[in-house]
Structure formats: C-alpha cells, structure tokens
C-alpha cells in the first residue's frame, strides 16, 4: 500500500539578492493515514518551507520547487494552482504556529470556520455555521454557539489554537500539517492541544505531520521522526529507533542537551557548540561539520563531501546522513553518548 503522502527528492530554492538559498535539499519521506511524522530541526532548517510546499502555497512566488509530492494520487509540484486549491483545506489542511496572526482580525471565529467548510461543501451559510459550532464543540470550546460570534482577539491563546484546529479539521482532511502548534502556548495548554490532536487522529484516521523543535513533543506523539539540518534530512526513522539508538552526532547533541531532573544542578547545561549555519553560506561537505565533536574520526571527509542518506543496515528503515561507519557510530554512542542520557 502506498502512503497517503509521499515526498520524493523535494528541493526548494529561493533566489535572493544575496544568492540562491537552498531552503530544502532533496527531502524524501512518507506518511500513512493514522500515523504521525514529527519533523524536527532548528529555526531555518527548512521545516516550514517543506510544509508550505506540500500545500502548494509556494505556487506563484519566486520559490523554485522541484521533486515530487504525492498527496492521495495527485502530484502537487507539477499540478496547476486550481488543482491544488481543490485539495487545500479538503484533503490536506494546516495549523499555523501563531494563531492570533493566522486568524483574520476582522472576521468572527465562526465566520472563518464556516468559510473553510463552505469552500468545499455545497451547503448554505447557516449549515456551515452549524458545522462551525459543531467543530468548536469538538475541540472543547465551551458554549460554542455563543463563541462563534467572537473575534479572534476575544479568545485566549489556547482557544485560538483550538479554533485553528477546528477550522483545519472542518472538512475532515486526510492529512493535517501542524506547524509548531504549541510553541506559543504554556505547558498545560500544550499538553491539552496535543491530546486533542491525538484524539482527533484516532477518530478520523488523519495523517499528521507535526513540525516542532521540541523533541519531547515528538517523543510523545509521533510515530516517525525526520531530523532536519540546514535544509537536509540527516536522520529519519521510527521514534523508537531514532530516540533509542540515535545515529547522527546532531541527534546526540540534541538529546544530551535535554536537562535532567536527576543531573547535578551545579553543572552548566550541555549545549551543541556553535550556531546553525546561514543558508546562504552553508559549510562545505556535511553542513554540521563545524559543530560536530567527531569530525576528526573520518579524516577530512566531513568538510569535503556531503554524506549520502543511507539505511543504518541492509533492509533497515532507519536512515542517517553521516560519514562515520555504523560500527564506529555505535561504539561512540555506547561509550560517550549513552552514559549522559
């Protein structure tokens, strides 16, 4: 069975005055119905650009998108705007990070949800508003028949994010892309929203792409993880594999940076040295090499050539982009990394 969403060799380039910015570089992944893929990476690693490409929202902009994106049998990259528009909101929907900015300030929440439903369904405005009430109720907003007449600024942050989810799910999309849906929310509300997404996924069998820079969120909700760095995927596999036996030094760095409650409170927090590269001047070879602690292990290879994305062993579905061989990685992981986890 082929997956609901299949991305093959996706690349996105922005021509700018300072040069060509390769925001996404030959990305490949797939998501099945009812499953969740977590895309993790630092700011500027290409997470959001990827999600916008899937929705075809870069059509008509200067972004150059290449590769293939198959959504339910339709190839998005080569399709025209009208074909993709019919899928947007209906087969695939998106929840944005900052719900206050992502909702129109001059329309009521009910109107905006009803609008999303009206585009793809031949119903009256009244029926669409009834649907909005139903959806707000489903995402846990009290007194939804009253709250549909509120404007976004009259909602709290958590409620706005719920309203966004209600809007995205109003047409029962098979694919939901959630771009850092909980970043702006406090921890308790964050947990509620994630649980809501999980419940809705169980109920409707939605495929979800969860974009985040929070490994904790991914560990809790995702089935697969895609780790991105400077526009490239550097590790890809099931949550179990990637979090139990992480392969890439960047993944090691991320995991050892998580503060432990059992750790010595007097020690400084562990961090990955350096800063993420600018996409205009990406380091040659492996983009992570200037920050990698193990760059000397394979001679000068890291700075000179880009490693391929390879399965860690024959027939495995756990991929990594690193020059070190599996045996070397395993020995470093067991002796130097695992003791700190």
């Amino acid at each position, binding site marked *: 069975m082929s997956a609901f969403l299949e991305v093959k060799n996706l690349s996105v380039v922005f021509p700018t005055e300072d040069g060509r910015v390769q925001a996404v570089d030959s990305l490949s992944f797939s998501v099945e119905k009812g499953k969740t893929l977590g895309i993790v990476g630092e700011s500027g690693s290409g997470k959001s650009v990827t999600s916008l490409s899937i929705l075809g929202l870069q059509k008509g902009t200067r972004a150059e998108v290449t590769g293939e994106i198959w959504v339910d049998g339709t190839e998005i990259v080569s399709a025209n705007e009208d074909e993709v528009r019919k*899928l*947007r*909101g209906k087969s695939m*929907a998106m929840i*944005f990070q900052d719900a206050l900015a992502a909702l129109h*300030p*001059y329309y009521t929440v009910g109107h905006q949800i009803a609008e999303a439903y009206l585009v793809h369904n031949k119903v009256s405005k009244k029926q669409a508003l009834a649907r909005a009430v139903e959806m707000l109720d489903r995402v846990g907003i009290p007194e939804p028949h009253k709250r549909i007449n509120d*404007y976004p600024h009259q909602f709290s942050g958590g409620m706005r994010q719920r309203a966004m989810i209600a809007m995205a799910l109003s047409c029962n999309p098979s694919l939901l892309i959630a771009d850092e849906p909980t970043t702006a929310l406090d921890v308790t509300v964050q947990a509620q929203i994630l649980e809501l997404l999980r419940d809705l996924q169980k109920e409707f069998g939605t495929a979800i792409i969860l974009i985040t820079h929070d490994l904790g969120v991914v560990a809790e909700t995702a089935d697969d993880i895609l780790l991105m760095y400077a526009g490239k995927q550097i590790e890809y596999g099931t949550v179990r594999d990637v979090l139990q036996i992480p392969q890439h030094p960047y993944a090691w760095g991320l995991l050892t940076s998580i503060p432990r409650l059992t750790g010595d409170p007097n020690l400084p927090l562990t961090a990955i040295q350096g800063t993420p590269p600018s996409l205009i001047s990406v380091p040659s070879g492996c983009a992570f090499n200037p920050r990698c602690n193990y760059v000397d292990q394979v001679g000068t290879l890291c700075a000179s050539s880009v490693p391929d994305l390879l399965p860690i062993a024959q027939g495995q579905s756990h991929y990594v982009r690193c020059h070190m061989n599996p045996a070397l990685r395993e020995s470093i992981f067991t002796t130097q990394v695992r003791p700190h986890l």
Partner: protein
Amino acid sequence: MLKYTLRRIVSGTLVLGIVSAIVFSIFYILPADPARLACGKSCTPELVQRIQVALELDQPLAVQYGRFIKGIFVGRTYLANTDAARTCSAPCLGYSYQTDLPVRQLLMDRLPATLSIAVGASILWLLIGLSSGIISALRRGTWIDRTSQGFALAAASLQIYFVGLILQFIFVDKLAWLPMPGYSSPFEYPLDWAKQMVLPWVTLAFLLSAIYSRLTRSGMIETMGEDFVRTARAKGLSSRDVNIKHVLRAAMTPIVTVFGLDLGSLLGGAVITEYVFNIPGLGKLATEAVSNLDLPVVTGTVLFAAFFIITANIVVDLLYSVLDPKVRLT
C-alpha cells in the same frame, strides 16, 4: 457608543468655540480697520465712527465675541434701542460688512457648489484610485503596475492650479468640448451642471486618485504578507476571494479614515479648485471675505469648515469601530 458619541459632540462644539475665538482675536489685533474699508473713498472721521458703531466695532473684543456666541444660540439684535435696530434670529452669524446680507444665507447659497465638487470628485477619485491601486498590487512588478504607479507619482506631484488651467485651456478654449466651469443648479439644469463640473471633478480627482492608488497598493501588498492571508489560501479559497475578502478588507480601514478626513476638509471649501475655476463655493467665499476684511463672513466660513472637519473626524472614529472589531469606543 452613545456616550462616546455625545462626548465627542460636546468636545467638538468646544473646539468650534476655540476656533471662533482665535479668528476673532486675529482680526482684533490686525492693523487694518474694517470700518475704514467699508467707508469708501469719500470718507470722514465721523462717518468711520458711525460705521464702527453700526458694526459694533467700538465694543471691546470680549463683548463682541460674547454677542457673537449669543447670536448663534439665541439670536441677537443689532443697534438695540435705536431706530435702526434689526433682529437676527438664531443661529445668527451676523451680516456681511460688504454686502449686508446675512452670513448664514451666504453660506447656504455657496454650499451647493462646494458640495457638488466634493461629492462628484470623491466618487471619481475613489473609483480610479482604488481600482488602479488594487490592480497594481495584484500585478506587482509588471508593466501595468509600473505604468500606473509612475503615473500616480507624477499626478500627485502636479498642482491643481497647473492641471486645472491646462485642462481648461485644452477642453474649453481649444477643443470647445466643455463650457466654462461654473455652477448651475443640478435640479433645474442637470446637464449644464454636469458639464460645468467635469473639469473641477477631473482636476481634483487627478491629484487625489494618485494618492489613493498608492495608499491602496501599499496597504494591499503589506496585507498580502500577513499570516491570515496564508491561512485563507490554505483553506482552499480562490485567489479572488482571498484578495477581496481577506486582503482588501484588511487594507480598507486606513483608506476609509483618510477618505473621511479628505471629504470633510473638502466640504469646508475646495479653495484652490474653486478659485482656479471661478466657482461660487465656500472656498471662494472665504478668500473673498479675507481680502475684504469681512469679519463675519470669515468667521462664518472658518466655523463652517471646522464644523465639517470635526464632524468627519467623529464619523471616521465611529466608523472605525464598525470596521475594526478590536476598536472599542469608551
């Protein structure tokens, strides 16, 4: 909302009071004597004094101003207790020094011409300015955008007295397609009215539509980058719906504000336009009154203009709360 409106009306009235006081004071400290000017060539000191008494210019400033304010609210009687006494009923703005006609009547006579110019021109500039601005924003960077914005920049840099006279020279003097601009009653001679108004409308709209075009374009382009526009597209709305219902709707608010204020100040008298085309409107009345030191008429026109501007401000603020749900009037 009601409380807010009432408060604004009260404060607006106070502003009108201050405006009239300032106009009065300026005239009082002016070295020229209106009585002397009204007296004419064969003038004697006695005659000047009689005129001063008749115009109540012999009274102190505070008394003159007090009587003026009283006249507005309850009416007043000039030269009371004499044979020449005459009563001016409220709202009394006095009599012109020049023509001896009631100022209120002068204002009402001149209002229709100004109203014709302001309403006609504003419809024209809104139509041209908004549509060219929208097209420019949607076709940003294309030759259509560059042409229309280049044209707008040039038009906004030109002046009414230049464009007006050029147009008049071409269409009235050379081609004779239009009659000399002026004012006829739109109810009695609608065709003449329209023909005479064409040039003032086009001239004013020429300048202002350029400003509105640039305003609309920049507002729409700014809004297009907003997250909520991306959301609208992600819903699967057609680009037409996205541009009209989401982009334009958000970009409209500042345009409505500017339009209200422009219309308000224009209603007080399109001074330059009326002067250039010799149209008997409020602006022309005001300029004539100033050069004749006709204090009651000057005060009347200034107050009238201030009234329109203040009203426009209040209306715009009220409208703002309708347009932007985040604005709550308290």
